[in-house]
């Protein structure tokens, strides 16, 4: 089980309650952005591109708690910016834990080791460390040499101090599935509880506008990465979301499943698109024209989106929408598959970098000719 039983139970009973109440749209994870400033300046991130007075602003703990209560979701993810730069982050996290919310504090871990003592291990708290791949890939993607080593040191320190530690890997065009698989081995060896992997997105405000994966390539990439998986790998994404990434099933977007709150208010419609802001959660739910979003809507900005924040809630909703959905999901949890797939292995063995950009000149730690074999252990 990639998440503690108590967490799975809390989420399941929350969703069931929403279903019994007949709520068509309900939030699952609040994406709480208490600040936008960061100690990295990744070329793939549009979250930090604001004037200085915006980057210097923080949500107060009271504003965070109010948002959490308004929203009511059982899980709170704290992206940013870098949350560890917020002077009151320990107070915010403690307040959320006291409210029995399952908190995923997303961090680049540059400050994790030195700030660990400000937090208390709890089943409600997980540090979700952003690591984008093996050393060279991560350093290149966060635009800082040495970033990987510091992040891994932070992970090891947090694991040793008894914290729950998960990871988050975002893949862009040019990603090498063999390297990503080695990366998973390294993360599990460092003692992380579970991992998340998601495709990047043609994020409107991102400075990098040319390295986005289309759907066809995303599916191929994730099929190569997630098929023939090792039993040692633990993922904290829903098994059906993983199948969605591998192209084995389709889900429409559920943008209200993971609503975002920041100093601007409640972001319409989702974590990625900024079509405006509502002042209250209720206003967000009532005034957003939800039918204009998701692949089916024909909105070009949603055309290639397969991201976790838009689609994992769809997988969770599917569980609870029919007996078939429930049985399918239950069987995935009880008898986890390694997704044996000889064609995917062939894909992996024959994978060639496609772009003549310097990005693909980055050497991985293993030899380039060393092909990964499937052990399925």
């Amino acid at each position, binding site marked *: 089980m990639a998440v503690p039983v108590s967490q799975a139970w809390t989420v399941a009973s929350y969703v069931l309650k929403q279903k019994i109440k007949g709520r068509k749209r309900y939030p699952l994870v609040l994406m709480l952005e208490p600040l936008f400033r960061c100690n990295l300046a990744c*070329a793939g991130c549009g979250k930090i591109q604001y004037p200085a007075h915006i980057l210097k602003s923080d949500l107060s703990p009271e504003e965070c708690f109010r948002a959490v209560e308004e929203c009511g979701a059982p899980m709170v993810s704290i992206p940013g910016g870098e949350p560890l730069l917020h002077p009151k982050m320990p107070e915010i996290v403690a307040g959320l834990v006291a409210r029995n919310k399952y908190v995923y504090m997303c961090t680049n871990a540059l400050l994790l080791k030195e700030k660990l003592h400000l937090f208390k291990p709890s089943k409600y708290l997980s540090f979700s460390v952003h690591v984008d791949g093996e050393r060279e890939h991560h350093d290149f993607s966060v635009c800082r040499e040495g970033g990987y080593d510091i992040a891994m040191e932070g992970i090891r320190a947090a694991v040793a101090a008894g914290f729950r530690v998960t990871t988050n890997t975002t893949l862009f065009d040019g990603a090498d599935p063999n390297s990503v698989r080695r990366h998973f081995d390294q993360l599990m060896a460092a003692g992380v509880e579970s991992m998340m992997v998601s495709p990047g997105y043609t994020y409107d*405000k991102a400075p990098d506008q040319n390295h986005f994966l289309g759907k066809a390539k995303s599916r191929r990439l994730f099929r190569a990465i997630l098929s023939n998986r090792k039993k040692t790998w633990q993922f904290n994404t829903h098994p059906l979301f993983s199948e969605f990434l591998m192209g084995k099933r389709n889900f429409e977007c559920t943008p209200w499943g993971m609503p975002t709150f920041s100093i601007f*208010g409640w972001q319409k419609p989702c974590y990625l698109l900024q079509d405006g802001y509502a002042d209250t959660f209720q206003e967000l739910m009532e005034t957003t024209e939800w039918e204009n979003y998701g692949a089916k809507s024909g909105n070009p900005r949603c*055309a290639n989106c397969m991201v976790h924040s838009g689609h994992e809630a769809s997988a969770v909703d599917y569980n609870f929408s029919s007996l078939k959905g429930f049985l399918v999901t239950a069987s995935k949890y009880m008898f986890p598959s390694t997704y044996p797939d000889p064609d995917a292995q062939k894909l992996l063995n024959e994978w060639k970098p496609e772009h003549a950009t310097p990005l693909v000149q980055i050497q991985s730690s293993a030899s380039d000719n060393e092909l990964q074999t499937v052990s399925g252990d």
Partner: protein
Amino acid sequence: MATEQQEHLKIEQLRQHSADEIETIAGREKENLEGWIPSLATDTEIREALEKAFDYRGDITITLKDGAKVEGYLFDRRSGSSLKDSFARVLPTNDRTKVNVAYSDIAALAFSGRDAAAGKTFEAWVKKYWEKKAAGEKNIQIEPEKLD
């Protein structure tokens, strides 16, 4: 809200192919808006200029018809049926209190602040990285901007 013009590469691509078959999706064209003072002669020009201001990653300065100025980050706009019930929403430079300005009260608009997104392409990073590497530099990185 990205305008059609900004999204046109993607829209063109989607006209030719189904989104499910596309390998690499087109990005968008970024306009250089820093320093721009749009003409606000017609309702359409006003609405278009505020749409672009919403997309802009720097501060703007709005001059009201009574001569007052609002300077800050335009984080939202609400488009109603008339200019009177359409609003620009600004976080002022020195305050966290959101200010609502009716489109009908706006006399002038200037893209006065530096565009925080300008020049920060992935390509620029790749170029810088390889130049520094070739020069034998170690610990190559992009430093976040100083905020003080």
